[in-house]
């Protein structure tokens, strides 16, 4: 397998898998513990609308996805503060609306959209150098933010009202974190695709949570599980010639099932 590293695309894929495992390990722990898995699913699927518009107008589909996911993230965070709207219904509306917009614009775009499937199911082998650098930048930002603001993040996620009585800027922290969630989702699209991202953000944490009940430890073990699963998934994908997004998720679930049985 070593000879594969002679190919840039393979080295890039491995690096992308490693970086994504770290980012998703951290962000996923926040998502799972704050119970915003459904919100994250909504953001993920809404981003497809941006991909479609990107295709149609001829700019980077990932940029479109970033704009859509950030807008939906802010929208949901804003709506969650209002008591007169059912949050989950609002998410469902955005979820399907984003997908619909994406499909409409992709079909309106003249010609065939060849890598549409890669956005839905991921295509880690086509990760470019530029994408790698952007992914790495986000990873550094996420890790530094959690390193420096660990306490306020933890305490606002645990008990918002109490955190507010302690003068923690809870709303600001929530907005920053939901933006990081949105960007993490967008930059993971290349790795596993829109349909599968949510598992990259929840299965490592669910597995880790079987063994440890501490926010920080869940982060570290999730990263480890993400690394093992994505590298295993990449190898399986190479040997069996199956899309890597699917093999990565399959590895993640296998680890979870084994852990569940062992535990």
């Amino acid at each position, binding site marked *: 397998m070593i000879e594969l590293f002679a190919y840039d695309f393979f080295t890039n894929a491995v690096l992308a898998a490693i970086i994504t495992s770290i980012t998703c390990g951290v962000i996923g722990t926040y998502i799972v513990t704050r119970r915003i898995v459904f919100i994250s699913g909504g953001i993920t699927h809404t981003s497809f609308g941006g991909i479609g518009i990107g295709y149609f107008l001829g700019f980077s589909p990932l940029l479109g996805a970033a704009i859509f996911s950030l807008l939906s993230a802010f929208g949901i965070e804003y709506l969650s503060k209002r008591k*007169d709207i059912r949050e989950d219904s609002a998410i469902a509306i955005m979820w399907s609306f984003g997908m619909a917009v994406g499909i409409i614009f992709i079909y309106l775009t003249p010609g065939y959209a060849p890598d549409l499937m890669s956005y839905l199911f991921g295509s880690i082998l086509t990760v470019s150098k530029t994408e790698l650098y952007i992914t790495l930048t986000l990873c550094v930002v996420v890790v530094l933010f959690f390193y420096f*603001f660990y306490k306020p993040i933890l305490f606002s996620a*645990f008990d918002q009202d109490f955190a507010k*009585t*302690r*003068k923690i800027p809870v709303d600001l922290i929530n907005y920053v974190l939901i933006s990081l969630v949105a960007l993490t989702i967008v930059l993971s699209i290349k790795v596993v695709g829109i349909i599968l991202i949510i598992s990259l953000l929840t299965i490592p944490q669910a597995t880790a949570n079987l063994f440890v*009940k501490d*926010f920080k430890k*869940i982060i570290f073990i999730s990263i480890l599980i993400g690394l093992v699963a994505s590298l295993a998934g990449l190898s399986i994908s190479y040997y069996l010639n199956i899309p890597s997004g699917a093999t990565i998720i399959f590895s993640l679930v296998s680890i979870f099932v084994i852990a569940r049985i062992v535990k």
Partner: protein
Amino acid sequence: MENENHILIEIKDIEAGYSGEIALSAVNLKIYENDFIGIIGPNGGGKTTLVKVILGLIKPFKGEVINKLNGTNENKSIGYLPQINFIDKKFPISVKDVVLSGFMDKGKLINKFTKEEKQTAMALMENMGISHLKNKPIGELSGGQLQRVFLSRAVVSSPKLLILDEPNTFVDNRFESELYEKLKELNKSMAILIISHDLGMISPYVKTIACVNKKLHYHDSNVISEKQLKEYNCPIQLITHGEVPHTVLGKHIH
């Protein structure tokens, strides 16, 4: 009358609620040093809303909250124990971290907790009988233990005012009486505001009673009759506790 200098919080003509619905109207209340006020009233009568207005968690539609607590950081001096059923018991956080979070403050977003703070937290956990649980995740605690953890978090920074929202839910009777003894002790150094659905249980401990049902009626004694409750428009169920007579404490002199 109590000296005006010793007033901690004054709320004036408050109207408050959620999404335009009015839960409290024309509410006035003064909280003095060493007060021990029991807040009673029917469900949905605005008890929690009142507490959240005092804590600054809800902005009132009308009126003002004057905070005269000492210190540079006004809200730092209010300890708060929220209703326990709003807490996510599966959240992966240890007892020690929950208690330490009581020291959080705007200036502490990045800084680590100091050695003194950690020692204070440890001593308090010892005093509350939860020091052996310090590394346990909160999900493994009983209701009574959990309440002790949240009480520790509320008082660890030695606030001047402690606000408790229904601290007697999900706890056993033994812990309940222990809790009130603890509050009596804490009352020597801080004012206490306690929401309860159980007037019979709190009345031996509190000094005064506030009936909240959209309006607030302040009752300057810890003994209240059914007739008075009716006058205050405060329909609550009076729960009797077996043979235990309601202890009538000396009248709280303002």
